């Protein structure tokens, strides 16, 4: 068998679609991380743990008969509070960006242990009415759970972009990230804004978690499987940019999927990091 195979048109188009779907999830998961990092200078590794915790909560609520999308009504406010609480802690102890990495890595371990103690280390799969639904467009199969993720990712990214670009709050957040003392001199309440933003980022993580639960099987240890590729999407997309992670995530997802369609799937993970390195090398100083 040769290492490179010329794919059929249907294989290629289905792979591109599959890449768009998984890329949307990378983008959605990366959105909160990017905002946290770019606007609050907090490298929040616990973002992934929050997403998984939300996924498990969604699984739990769904197993009790609640629709997974309705579960968002309970999950999102909860995670908003958790994110704001974490930001309060970070501000209280004036934790530096580097130390935030250590703090949130530790927090990730704690959340993983918590998940394992409640739901065990066994794999869990959310069963919902969405899971069985798909439709066909021409020769393409479109699964509904992945489509929901794509729609949510696009809508939320666009909404966050609009808020950051067109509202006073967005300007204040961007201003504080650029030059905090000047922003404060203009009356920006950075503390309140930071709490609001951190809460929003955690809430975004929880939405990503629900989407994750809709399409993927859950295990506590899989928290770490997403870190590399989502970080790549965040850095490629540009820190603090609302649309960046979605665009970069989609690019990575499609590149990976096409790689899998034409050659060995084991080469796919190299794609995201090759892209990341290429961007960092070719666009010095512009990625962040």
């Amino acid at each position, binding site marked *: 068998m040769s290492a490179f*195979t010329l794919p059929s048109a249907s294989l290629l188009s289905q792979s591109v679609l599959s*890449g768009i779907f998984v890329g949307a999830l990378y983008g959605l998961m990366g959105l909160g991380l990017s905002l946290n990092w770019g606007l609050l200078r907090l490298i929040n590794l616990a973002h992934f743990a929050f997403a998984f915790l939300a996924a498990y909560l969604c699984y739990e609520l769904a197993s009790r008969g609640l629709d997974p999308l309705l579960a968002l009504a309970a999950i999102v406010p909860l995670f908003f509070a958790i994110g704001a609480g974490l930001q309060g802690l970070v501000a209280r102890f004036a934790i530096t960006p580097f130390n935030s990495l250590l703090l949130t890595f530790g927090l990730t371990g704690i959340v993983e242990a918590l998940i394992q103690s409640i739901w*065990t280390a066994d*794999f869990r799969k959310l069963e919902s009415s969405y899971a069985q639904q798909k439709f066909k467009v021409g020769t393409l199969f479109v699964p509904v759970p992945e489509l929901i993720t794509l729609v949510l990712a696009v809508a939320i990214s666009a909404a966050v972009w609009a808020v950051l670009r067109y509202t006073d709050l967005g300007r204040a957040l961007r201003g504080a990230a650029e030059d905090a003392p000047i922003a404060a001199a203009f009356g920006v309440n950075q503390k309140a804004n930071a709490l609001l933003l951190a809460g929003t980022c955690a809430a975004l993580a929880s939405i990503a978690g629900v989407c994750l639960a809709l399409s993927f*099987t859950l*295990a506590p240890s899989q928290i770490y499987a997403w870190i590399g590729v989502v970080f790549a999407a965040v850095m490629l997309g540009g820190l603090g940019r609302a649309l960046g992670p979605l665009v970069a995530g989609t690019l990575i997802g499609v590149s990976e999927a096409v790689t*899998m369609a034409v050659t*060995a*799937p084991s080469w796919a*993970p190299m794609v995201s990091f090759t892209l990341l390195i290429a961007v960092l090398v070719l666009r010095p100083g512009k990625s962040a």
Partner: protein
Amino acid sequence: MLKASPTSRRSALAAALFGLVVLGGVDSPVSAQTAGAPIRIGSTLALTGPLSATAQIHRIVGEIYVEQLNKRGGLLGRQVEWIVKDDQSKADLARTLYEQLVTADKVDLLIGPYATGAILSAMGVAQRYNKVLVHHTLGIPSLAKYDMQFPAWSLGADPATTVPNTIFDALAAGPKPPKTVAVVTNKFPSIQFMTAGAREVMKKRGLTEVLFLEWDFGNRDFGPIANRIKDAKPDFVWVGAIGLDGNLLLDAMKKLDYVPPQHFYLYPAPGPLVSLPEAKNALSVTIFEDQLPFTSAPGAAEFVKIYRERATKAGLADPSVETQAAASYTAWQILEAGVVATKSLDDKAIATWLKANKVDTLQGKLRFDGLGNFGDDLMRVKQVQNGHWVVVWPKEVTSGGAKLLAP
């Protein structure tokens, strides 16, 4: 960690004191004192980390076995205490912890962890201190170089040839012997090694390989892989699966409206796969299943019952005894047999005895005189039928005359 109950400790202490007073003339007060102390058996398990789901099975089995053993009077008239440490799914940490078990905890005996990487780490330590190591599920026998290690998983010395042959024998005897095969596999070492063997076996049998794909451990997106299998139109799909690979691939196939004609999964997470409707007729391999004739082995029915209760209570997705739990139980049986037969805790004596004798276990009689101390390949072929795993090959171990089904 399991420890002897206070009552049994008091009884053991009383027995030791009685021995001192009455027998007076024992060689050394130290030996008299330790005669009643529990025998300490040390091990690590991946209680946290990516391998922890399976480690829970081994933890439950170990607890059951030690309880049963102590009820029977322990080993050499002494209670048994199992010291189990968490290696966090890290082979390097397993090495450190086994070193601690020998040098700091000063355990009397060692018993192995379950995953290949951790087993090899433990084996290095056991070799350094000349300790016997009975281990649970080493997937690559050629890596077992140490003379005093004993495998509890009856894979045979050359599983990369014998296991695929068993599978293709079963398919050849089935209703639709395949002519074309798609081989897709995880690159996890013990999986990749078996898949490489399967490809060789296929060649020798004149089967046509229409697709070969590999992915890394932890792959998230199985859509393109499912797509390529669908495009290749094979009669049979060999999936070098570990953990959830099978579920994820079947999920991805379902999204494409594709049902593989005949399909095999090497080491799937058994519970999640069997509960998936798309896994209908999926094949896999096993050394033990929760069904006759396996449960007719001495002690098997009781173990299966207790395990089911404990696993259910612990929230495990699949509370039935299969390969992992059976290999784990077997490891304890092998160690017990060695100690009882030699009436000692002397590692060299135990190893010599094990190499020269067969041991009655849950899997049947095991021998340890082959390459790497491996004996016979007792891997059987099982299939998902009506939502349950059913052993379908070879004929002499099928339950109720079950046969391999093909759509």
